[in-house]
């Protein structure tokens, strides 16, 4: 719980420093390598906060090297290796034992910044040992692994503990860099890719609107006017068969089509005498098609010869 209180307090201090750049400059040791991104508080504060604003840094090239160099400068020549659990336990005991020890440790850290050698060209590898250190410290809740990395050194009362935390920072930086290693297009590449994308989009649009014959399969059958006209004539003939069947059964013509067994819609029945009748329907173009029982048109004879009513007669 003490560690968490220190961490939140440290974050508040960091935010207030961000709003007061002049005050922040006073706190930071005058080191050229460290100043922009690594903020180290002096020994009179309760805790030390190392703020690595990775989101901003990793957008440009060389951020990784610069970030690691800054962290190494802060460590001041300490090898990036995880400590064993004994070191951690010792650090916990020291933190519980004496608050002044923490302050002394912070003073030592501040001194390290001043004597930091130039190791910007050395890039530590993300070794399994470093990963293990990161995992251990993260499990202890001492480091917040977000886009903006905040390390709370409040509990790091010994030099070894501090090194462990910083090793974790390095590991985190490596991982962040790997995650955000996005191949950012240059302006020229972005332009030609956009041109290519627009061209493909236009091609897709043209293909959708007017697909080439290569991709269009054989069209399905369509209904011609002749097919519909033929259907009207067959329907008239079939309706006439219903009336003839009624006459054969009843010995008379029906008064209306409702008397017959099956009446097709859209066909008008006209009874001209006791023996003759006409059936009228309309073609798709509006032309009236008439079936006259006295003298059916030749088209009906043709259909009748092909149709089922005469098939079994032959």
């Amino acid at each position: 719980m003490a560690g968490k209180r220190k961490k939140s307090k440290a974050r508040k201090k960091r935010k207030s420093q961000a709003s007061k750049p002049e005050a922040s400059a006073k706190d930071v040791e005058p080191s050229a390598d460290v100043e922009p991104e690594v903020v180290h508080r002096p020994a009179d504060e309760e805790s030390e906060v190392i703020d690595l604003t990775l989101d901003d840094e990793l957008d440009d090239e060389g951020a990784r090297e610069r970030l690691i160099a800054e962290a190494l400068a802060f460590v001041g020549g300490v090898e990036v290796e995880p400590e064993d659990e004994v070191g951690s336990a010792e650090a916990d005991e020291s933190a519980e034992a004496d608050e002044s020890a923490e302050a002394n440790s912070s003073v030592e850290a501040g001194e390290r910044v001043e004597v930091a050698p130039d190791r910007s060209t050395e890039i530590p590898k993300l070794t399994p040992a470093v990963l293990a250190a990161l995992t251990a410290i993260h499990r202890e809740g001492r480091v917040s692994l977000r886009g903006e990395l905040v390390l709370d050194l409040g509990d790091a009362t010994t030099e070894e503990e501090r090194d462990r935390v910083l090793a974790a920072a390095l590991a985190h930086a490596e991982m962040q860099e790997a995650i955000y290693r996005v191949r950012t297009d240059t302006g020229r590449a972005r332009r030609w890719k956009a041109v290519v994308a627009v061209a493909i989009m236009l091609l897709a649009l043209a293909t959708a609107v007017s697909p080439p014959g290569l991709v269009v399969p054989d069209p399905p059958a369509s209904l011609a006017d002749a097919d519909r006209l033929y259907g009207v004539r067959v329907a008239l003939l079939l309706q006439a068969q219903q009336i003839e069947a009624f006459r054969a059964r009843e010995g008379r013509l029906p008064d209306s089509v409702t008397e017959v067994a099956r009446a097709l819609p859209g066909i008008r029945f006209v009874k001209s005498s006791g023996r003759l009748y006409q059936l009228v329907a309309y073609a798709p173009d509006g032309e009236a098609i008439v079936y006259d029982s006295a003298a059916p048109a030749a088209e009906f004879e043709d259909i009748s010869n092909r149709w089922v009513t005469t098939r079994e007669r032959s």
Partner: protein
Amino acid sequence: MRRLRGLTPADVLIGIAVGALILAFLYPSLRAWSFRGLVEDVIAEVETLRSGATAVFAQTGAWPTAGAPGRIPTEVSIHFTADSSLVRSDYTLQWTIWEVVEQVIAPASVAPVPFDADAVPDSVEPAVMPVVRHVGGIVVYASDDALLAELLARYGSDVSFVRDTAWTLVVERSGGGP
């Protein structure tokens, strides 16, 4: 996270464009494939209905009872195990019965006897009489003209016809398939 790993927005845009192009190329084929599937579905149900009705006619000498659109005749319902309706999203089937009149040669007992005084004609037209018989009918109602046209093309215009939004197939005792 700010962006996808390894892909720039321009890369993503190109990927979307290529996907759209592929879709545009495949769309006509997909549509035709879907339509063929619909036609096959309709033909399968028409054939099931026809074979069931023909089997009933062969056994009983009568066609199954005509029904309203979408209703399966009870005599052939065993052939439709899925459900008891012929109403589908794209079409509706109906079983119906038509009466047709055939002019058959009248038997000698009903043939007219000439008067004795009449001269014997060189040739006499045989006496005919109307006989009513029944044929079955399968009607497919659909708003898609292409479906109706495809059915007309498959079955032919001497056993089927299209009128308005319906395709009608006349079923004989032994009719041919599509």
